[in-house]
């Protein structure tokens, strides 16, 4: 948007100059036409259509058409394109609609991780409150049990049998309350790791969208085209950034998780065989039993549930992310930003060549031609 072919002031001056002096061109052209009309000579017959009137009609209609076409021709002579804001959007409705849809898709994709993170944070806040309430309840149940133990049967004004029953109930209630606290705390730990993962994803997606938007604006001439290009660039950037995230920040952790999932069915089958038949690794028939267990349809369902649960767990993120990994991630995002910023300032070779391609071939990015709005 900023002075690709010269300074901003030169572009502004050319545009406003043409707007103002277009009227002079029109006026000269109209007088020229009217001189032709005068030479054609208007009919003296005041109430009848004549051959002169026919010529007059043709000249008048053609003159009006030529007046409007001439404006585009003169703009072309002076090297002026229609501006981004009052140009192609009005002329190409389909491109405008594609632009709107692209912008909407990109915004939805960018906002999705942020929404997910916000939801997780909300869940964590609720979980914290649940833990507090559960702890209070557990403390109260524990106090009841401790008071009962301290008081003894005589202090509780109960006979021994009643006292033992009451003590058992109090102990069970306290144990359940403590178990409830532990469950909620485990859920809180899972939420914390999920939030960490989602926050990194949000930053990466948002950063790539900003870079893609900048690239789209720098590389195209209209807002509609910029939105289409930004959407497609954003998808490409996300596909680059997500594996980059996996390989840099989560590299070791992702590999560990993958290994855990691969080994899970074998481990589960060995445990099941050991539990059912009392066999250990190395015993005769152990491998055969493990193989049969793995083929069992019911056991396959159990394996699937366990694998799903393992995939849900981001336990690896509890380990501290080393600064070297963060620097690597920063470099990936920095390179993305540089590309976008370069295209935005229209100084980058990529931005200029891309812009030329857009003008020559229409909207085409990495071989994908946008001919259908639904393809975007």
């Amino acid at each position, binding site marked *: 948007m900023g*002075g690709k072919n010269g300074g901003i002031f030169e572009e502004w001056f050319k545009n406003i100059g043409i707007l103002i002096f277009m009227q*002079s061109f029109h*006026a000269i052209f109209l007088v020229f036409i009217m*001189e032709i009309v005068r030479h054609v000579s208007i009919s003296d017959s005041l*109430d009848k259509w004549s051959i002169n009137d026919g010529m007059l009609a043709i000249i008048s209609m053609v003159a009006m058409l030529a007046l409007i076409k001439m404006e585009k021709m003169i703009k072309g002579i002076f090297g002026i394109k229609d501006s981004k804001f009052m140009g192609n959007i009005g002329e190409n409705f389909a491109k405008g609609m594609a632009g709107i849809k692209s912008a909407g898709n990109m915004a939805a994709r960018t906002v999705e991780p942020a929404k997910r993170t916000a939801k997780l944070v909300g869940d964590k806040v609720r979980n914290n409150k649940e833990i507090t309430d559960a702890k209070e309840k557990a403390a109260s149940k524990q106090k009841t049990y401790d008071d009962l133990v301290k008081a003894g049967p005589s202090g509780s004004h109960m006979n021994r049998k009643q006292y033992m029953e009451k003590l058992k109930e109090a102990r069970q209630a306290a144990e359940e309350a403590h178990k409830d606290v532990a469950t909620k705390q485990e859920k809180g730990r899972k939420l914390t790791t999920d939030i960490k993962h989602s926050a990194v994803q949000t930053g990466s997606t948002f950063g790539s969208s900003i870079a893609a938007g900048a690239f789209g604006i720098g590389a195209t001439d209209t807002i509609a085209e910029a939105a289409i290009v930004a959407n497609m660039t954003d998808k490409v950037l996300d596909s680059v950034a997500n594996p980059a995230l996996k390989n840099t920040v989560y590299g070791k952790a992702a590999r560990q998780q993958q290994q855990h999932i691969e080994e899970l069915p074998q481990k589960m089958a060995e445990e099941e065989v050991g539990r059912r038949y009392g066999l250990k690794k190395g015993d005769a028939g152990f491998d055969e039993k493990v193989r049969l267990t793995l083929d069992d349809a019911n056991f396959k369902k159990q394996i699937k549930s366990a694998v799903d649960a393992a995939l849900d767990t981001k336990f690896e993120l509890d380990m501290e992310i080393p600064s070297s990994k963060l620097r690597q991630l920063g470099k990936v995002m920095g390179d993305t930003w540089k590309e976008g910023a370069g295209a935005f300032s229209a100084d980058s070779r990529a931005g200029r060549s891309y812009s030329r391609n857009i003008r020559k071939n229409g909207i085409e990015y990495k071989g994908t031609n946008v001919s259908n709005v639904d393809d975007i």
Partner: protein
Amino acid sequence: MLYYIYFFYGAGVGENGAFPFPDQIIFNKIAILDPNFINPAVGSLGHNDITHGLFANTYSSFFVLATTIFTIAALVIGIKLVFSSIAAEKAQYKKALNTWIVGIVMLFLVHYLLAGMFYLNEKIVESVSVLADGIEVKIDLLASFPMLGSTIGKAVSGVINSVAGFFGAKESITDITLYGYGGIIMRFFCLGIIGGDLIASITFLIIIGQTFGLVITYLKRTFMCIVLGIMAPVVVAIDVIQKSLK
């Protein structure tokens, strides 16, 4: 029917008619289509108290913004020039300072530049329009009425003109002389819409449609000129910043 005659007749002969014909649009006879917000004509968009105040205040705000940008730029360039020790860098900052000086001069001169362009355009259009007014188009209104028929219509207009002559009229009062492009369109209107000629009617409607297009084009032009003109100070400031950074 008489209303429509007045509507198009008034537009064809007068400058303040209801429907703008192409020559009136192009020859600056329609005040609302005048983009000159610096020296607005009476009745134009910039002549109204509210819009004039709006344009002036917006331009002032952009001017103040531009001077702020220039001040900050001057400070940055000055500091960099003072603290720089490498000759190549010093030369670069001196070049940036020259650009800054040219820019500040342009900031104060840009609205004179705009006013000059508007004035030059208006003068060209005015001198050219004088040539166009020379074309005469005669129309006999009464003869065009279909209900009267051309023979009866001519007879009636003959009677009316005779009576008018008796009372001192020097020329025919039923023959109208129109000028310019509007006159040509009026001729098609009378022959076609009033007289019933099909080709004339179609021609008239096509030209009216094209005129609507011209009105829209000139309206767009007016808005674009005003917007571009008002943002001139910011354009100058950003241009200087961009050139200084190169």
